[in-house]
């Protein structure tokens, strides 16, 4: 996976997160309602324009699309063959989703996680009457993004440790140590968050440090 946010001093980078996500939604709806190839074409053009304006390395960004395109082709392609839908239809479906994935990727590449999370926090504010705590949701989203590469490291480490002990492939045996590690790491992560001034009681709900 291409790193999440890729810093550039571009107009697109400076746009507010809300505008970018709102725009993405709008384009998505348009693309999915426009008939035939038109939607894909429109989204592709928007994508190309944004890609250029964002001053991102086009080659690298587009190569990120390779896996999803292969995947989409396999998904929709078989359908064409077996269900007799025709290749044209498959190509259009693949192009539509590929263009939408490109647009989504461009949003995450040009928006800092913090800004994205702030946006979610404001949106969740609307759900406060339902008992939703927007600050907590926001923090969890940020943590999730941070934990994904951390987890990748843990998986690699655990797998290597198993191979080193002569077990080349044992999925059940992979998950036990992985989960034990994740769960023990949770203690340290919790302490570190609170040590840095995060206070769960801060945002309306009660429940201080407890172990």
């Amino acid at each position, binding site marked *: 996976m291409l790193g999440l946010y890729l810093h550039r001093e571009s107009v697109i980078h400076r746009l507010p997160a809300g505008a970018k996500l709102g725009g*993405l939604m709008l384009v998505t709806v348009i693309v999915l309602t426009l008939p035939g190839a038109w939607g894909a074409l429109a989204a592709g053009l928007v994508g190309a324009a944004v890609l250029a304006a964002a001053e991102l390395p086009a080659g690298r960004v587009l190569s990120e699309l390779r*896996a999803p395109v292969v995947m989409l082709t396999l998904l929709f392609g078989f359908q064409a063959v077996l269900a007799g839908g025709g290749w044209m239809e498959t190509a259009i479906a693949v192009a539509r989703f590929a263009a939408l994935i490109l647009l989504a990727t461009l949003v995450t590449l040009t928006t800092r996680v913090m800004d994205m999370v702030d946006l979610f926090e404001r949106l969740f504010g609307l759900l406060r009457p339902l008992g939703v705590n927007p600050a907590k949701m926001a923090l969890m989203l940020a943590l999730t993004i941070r934990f994904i590469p951390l987890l990748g490291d843990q998986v690699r480490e655990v797998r290597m440790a198993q191979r080193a002990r002569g077990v080349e492939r044992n999925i059940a045996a992979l998950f036990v140590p992985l989960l034990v590690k994740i769960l023990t790491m949770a203690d340290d992560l919790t302490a570190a968050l609170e040590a840095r001034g995060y206070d769960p009681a801060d945002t309306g709900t009660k429940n201080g440090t407890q172990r």
Partner: protein
Amino acid sequence: MLSTRDLVLCALFAALLGGLGMAPPIPLGFLPVPITAQTLGVMLAGTILGAKRGGIAALLFVLLVAAGLPLLAGGRGGIGVLMGPTGGFVLIWPIAAFVTGWLTERFATTANPIRLFAVSVLGGILVVYAGGIPWLSLVAGLPIEKAAFGVLAFLPGDLIKAGIAAVAASGVRRAGILPIHA
């Protein structure tokens, strides 16, 4: 209500769900829905974290996919994908994790792998199919019986995942870590 530790655990399992997307998806051939490892994450979130935290973990994952992160198997993400034929399966994951967790809290609080397997099947397979089949039928224009019949092809894989979830959750319990009561 959620302690800091709960926030961390939810985020960790949401990340785990994302991490399982790195495993290459397998296309079936006759449905525009692949076999993926990610439902295993749904089962693990439920059986290990319980209803509330498990549900939130899966919800975080869905929100991040909606925000555009390429976290679905094969590097896909964004609202567009969620509107596609597989969207129903994904959107139901928070509820599926919640149900798995709810059942776990009631019937599978020990290290007994059989019970853990059963709750994983009910929450992580039945609920997911219940969300996925009607959506698939609608979006792909398939008659619902055909969609339901096609989805049966996922059953062997999903049963294996439930087995892995049961063994793993049982191992975690035996290791003496039980965040379900914490």
